[in-house]
């Protein structure tokens, strides 16, 4: 079985988000880059399938050379090899097109993604890849088993869960729950050393078409100063919520 895992390189979760002075772009100064946390669930799941079913795991990232440390980290976690499409992606569509172009001839049985990236929060790449490849798609997956040419995925729905059987090849977008948090793999020294020599293929993009442009960005306006209420005067809190904030 061949698995392709899509990973996105995103600002570390503790990053303060700033924009350039003219507000036209995200300010990358001083940012640490990590594997998108939701992609880490997908990657760990793939490595588990590699162990249990002898699958091979290829990671793919659409990004410029600056994303290579993050790709090496994915290799250290256990992927067999990697592909980087040499394009600083401008929107979900261009990202999805490049992933689909690589997947097209790769003969992958399963494409795993995180359900959204924590930077631009598009949540669109996995579904777009599925449609570009004309494959079935299961989103927000919190469980996955593979059995021959079929997978059983559990997906989260509002107020419940649904178990779905899917014919492979398919695209599955995962989130927390796809594997347990405690099972996320922290690369060890051996993994890090071997990642240095694992194949990382760089391919050029197939097109430069973009469908959505980020025109400008704003920071979140600060909240007014907090009003502190004494724990001995909860009547006051109730009054404020009722009369001032009008939320109860």
């Amino acid at each position, binding site marked *: 079985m061949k698995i392709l895992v899509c990973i996105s390189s995103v600002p570390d979760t503790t990053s303060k988000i700033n924009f350039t002075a003219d507000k036209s772009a995200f300010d990358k100064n001083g940012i640490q880059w990590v594997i998108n*946390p939701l992609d880490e669930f997908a990657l760990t799941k793939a490595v588990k399938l590699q162990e249990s079913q002898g699958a091979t795991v290829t990671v793919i990232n659409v990004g410029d050379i600056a994303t290579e440390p993050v790709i090496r980290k994915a290799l250290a976690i256990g992927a067999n090899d990697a592909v980087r499409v040499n394009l600083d992606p401008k929107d979900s569509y261009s990202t999805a097109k490049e992933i689909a172009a690589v997947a097209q001839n790769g003969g992958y049985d399963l494409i795993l993604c995180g359900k959204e990236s924590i930077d631009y929060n598009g949540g*669109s*790449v996995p579904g777009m890849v599925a449609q570009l490849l004309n494959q079935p798609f299961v989103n927000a997956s919190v469980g996955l088993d593979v059995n021959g040419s079929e997978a*059983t995925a559990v997906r989260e729905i509002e107020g419940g869960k649904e178990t779905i059987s899917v014919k492979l090849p398919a695209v599955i977008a995962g989130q927390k729950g796809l594997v347990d948090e405690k099972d996320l793999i922290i690369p060890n020294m051996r993994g890090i050393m071997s990642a240095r020599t694992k194949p990382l293929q760089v391919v050029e993009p197939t097109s430069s078409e973009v*469908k959505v442009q980020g025109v400008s960005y*704003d920071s979140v306006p600060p909240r007014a100063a907090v009003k502190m209420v004494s724990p001995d005067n909860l009547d006051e809190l109730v009054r404020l919520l009722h009369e001032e904030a009008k939320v109860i």
Partner: protein
Amino acid sequence: MAVFVYAENINGVYKKAAFEAVSYAKAVADQAGDTVTAISVNPTDSSDLLYKYGASNVINIKDEGLKSFSAKAFAQAVSEVADGNIIIFPHTTDASSVAPMLAIMKNYSLITNVLEAPESLSPFQVKRRAFSGKGFMHAKAEGTGVIVTVSQNAFGVKENAASGSEEVKNLSVANEDTKVVSHEQSSGKLDLKEAEVVVSAGRGMKGPENWGMIEDLANVLGAATACSKPVSDIGWRPHTEHVGQTGKAISPNLYIAVGISGAIQHLAGVNSSKTIVVINSDPEAPFFKSADYGVVGDAFQIIPALTEKIKAIKG
């Protein structure tokens, strides 16, 4: 510029998110000088519910094959009936699975997590959530067709009655690639993303056995419950309740955070709540900086007392 909107239902019953999406579509249609056509798959609810928010046509897709959900088959069905150049979806789990597939089928631009009415229609430009709530992006669509997903609880539900008519479309979309094996819906629980009030608790609660008081407070407020990430990692609460950068992003009218420190990853998912109340024993807890109202004290004393006081005024 015909405006179409996907009115999502669960087991035939329209979701609040559907009314919000129709309300949004109506605002877009007013800007465009056109009308709203709502699309629904196998609804049992009356179309009157959609006219109330401004839909003037409702297309009810009848398809036995779509009794259970498949992102691809639903996208195919919507694609067959939505022949406008603006298509609105709510940003629910199902709709945000359908929208990207539809965008490829139609070769339209897709802008997700939209917060406000468009800033311009041609080109289509709109403010959206980005950086997990740590920033906003003004996104512009290229080309003429656009699909948007509207972030839940952002635009709001707005009554705006139109007189409408209903049309039934019988489709039989092929749905062979996926099959729903089982479906579990926990009844009676408020949906966290739709809830207008959320009571959330963190590691400060010490253990799962102490959640009764959080649920009591939620009950008197008609609220949904949520939690911080470590709480769901340890298994005190189901991970479906985890809010934040790697959990659910929510924007209720009132968010009450009990025994939660207010780490940046937690704030990312909740700071678009309209009013935030923080209850924490540590006066230095970072969450106070992002709160509207704060109480320094022991949650084990404050929560039961607060519950009684709210019960009294709700009387």
